[in-house]
């Protein structure tokens, strides 16, 4: 019974973490699969979302204001980066990866400069501060909220991909970039819009994560690798892949340190390497390998 409760709680933890990873990985995956950009600074935007969210919450006294404002701010920053830097460098993977790596450096220090080095904990909004008795423990409702937002995101993205014109463009672009490029000038705008959506999601993920994980420098690097592994495993540009990858890694990251604490990290990196070597297009690729 003890074991059952313990596993139950861990499963819930895995779920909310998967939701968070999914929201992060979507942007990364789309950037990689559609725009062919390896954006190592994606999680820096996540971190900025958390920091800005924290500050806004302090000023406005409301979590909900932060949840709206921070992603907008992050998207603006992301859009500037895209327009200023990344859109100029399409096709040269090394340079892109390195520039985003440089941005990682810059971001790390910029947050230390503005916010200092202490850890912050953002307060859970009053509305969601209750706990629920489950599996013989009290579990914060807030985490269900995070899970809920994640599921809602999956739904919206799925509908967006299948039903909207933008979605059709994205699907075409991931499937065959060159072909899509010949279809017309709106491709660039579509790419840009998609990039902004991915960035907004990263910002939202930052605000969502802030009350649970501490807001501190280095939180971007901490989550970058799991997010990258999600993209690699799921398959670049694949929504289903991002969901699958997020669930797998969320579970691994939750159960790993509990079951095999000394091997959890190692196994995750080994998994990443294995998938890259054996099935680089991912487990649920957008187009089947030939």
């Amino acid at each position, binding site marked *: 019974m003890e074991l059952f409760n313990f596993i139950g709680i861990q499963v819930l933890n895995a779920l909310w973490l998967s939701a968070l990873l999914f929201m992060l990985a979507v942007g990364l995956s789309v950037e*990689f699969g559609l725009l062919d950009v*390896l954006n190592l600074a994606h999680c820096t935007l996540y971190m900025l979302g958390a920091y800005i969210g924290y500050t806004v919450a302090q000023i406005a006294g409301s979590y909900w204001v932060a949840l709206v404002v921070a992603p907008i701010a992050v998207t603006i920053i992301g859009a500037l980066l895209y327009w200023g*830097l990344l859109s*100029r460098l399409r096709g040269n*993977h*090394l*340079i892109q*990866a*390195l*520039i985003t*790596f*440089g*941005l*990682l*450096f*810059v971001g*790390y*220090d*910029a947050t*230390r*400069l503005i916010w200092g080095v202490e850890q912050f904990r953002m307060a859970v909004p009053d509305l969601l501060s209750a706990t629920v008795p489950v599996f013989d423990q009290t579990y914060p409702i807030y985490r269900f909220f995070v899970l809920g937002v994640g599921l809602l995101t999956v739904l919206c993205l799925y509908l967006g991909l299948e039903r909207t014109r933008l979605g059709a463009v994205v699907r075409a672009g991931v499937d065959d970039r060159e072909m899509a490029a010949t279809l017309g000038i709106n491709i660039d705008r579509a790419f840009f819009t998609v990039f902004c959506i991915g960035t907004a999601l990263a910002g939202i993920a930052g605000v969502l994560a802030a009350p649970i994980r501490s807001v501190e420098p280095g939180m971007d*690097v901490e989550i970058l*690798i799991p997010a*990258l592994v999600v993209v*690699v495993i799921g398959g670049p540009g694949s929504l289903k892949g991002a969901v699958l990858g997020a669930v797998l890694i969320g579970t691994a990251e939750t159960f790993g340190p509990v079951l095999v*604490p*000394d*091997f959890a*990290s*190692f196994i*995750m*990196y*080994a998994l*990443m*390497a294995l998938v*890259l*070597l054996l099935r*680089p297009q991912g487990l649920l690729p957008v187009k089947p390998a030939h």
Partner: protein
Amino acid sequence: MQRRDPLALPLLALLFGGLFATGLYAGAYWLTIVTEIAIFTIFALSVDFLVGYAGLVTFGHAGFMGVGAYALAYLSHFAGWPVGLSILAGIAAGALAGILIGWLVTRVSGVFFIMVTLAVSMMFWAWASRSPVFGRDDGLGGMKRMNLRAIGIDLNDPRTFAIVCVIAAALIYLLFWWLVRSPFGQILKGIKQNENRIRAQGLPVQSYKVAAFAVASAVAAFAGTLHLQNTKFVHPEVAHWIKSGESLIVVIVGGAGTLVGPVIGTFLFFVFHRVVESFTQNWQIWMGLLFIAIVLMAPEGIYGRLRSLTRKRAAPSREGAPDA
């Protein structure tokens, strides 16, 4: 065929000479910088050999520094081997790891290669951070330097150690310079420029990539053994992907594919770090911005830019007039 670089020799003389002279005369503070620059230069040279000459952009080369450092630590500290032998074993371990891992990772290319090298190096880091024998993420101290007292050299003297490292860096430079101008080096150049073409000439491309990888890994392992002897401390950070990233920054800023570039880049990185650090704690922003600026405006790096400027001035019609 081999274009003459009038700048190379004077620059190198200046840089290495400067290091050597600082090593001979400066105080303790500068000695540590000299040693760090010398050791990182060795590492950066091995990265340039892969990135700038073989076209293998690796984001995990620090892993091989880790292999060298940890092999040395284990053999000299736990297995009781003499340090000198352990260093050789560390280099051999690096070469072996380079062959095995090289054979695996050269199956993919492009961004996938970048990511898989990152992943594999972090596998090592993950192992090292968790290994109780080596003190997990705290690392382990008490490492020894090589005992050369029989030939009158005391490596425990910081000045002597610094000079030895500078000489080692110069020798490694010569090694790569030699390799790069050999037929083997020419083949690597061919692989980097057009892998398909050279394969169509009958070259077993993957074998050559693995060979380059093994050489670079052995040298990185050597840098790792020097690093261990310098700090007398073994720590997983030596293998982290951020450290690999720093080596890439150094190579690109200095000028990839030039060998002189990584030397300049390392100098800049360390000097910049110390100088900026004396003004502000946030040197990484400035380093990051400088790096981005260089990548955008002078992707051939500082030395690459200097070289093309001097070549233009020296012989404007050197390359042969284009056909009508």
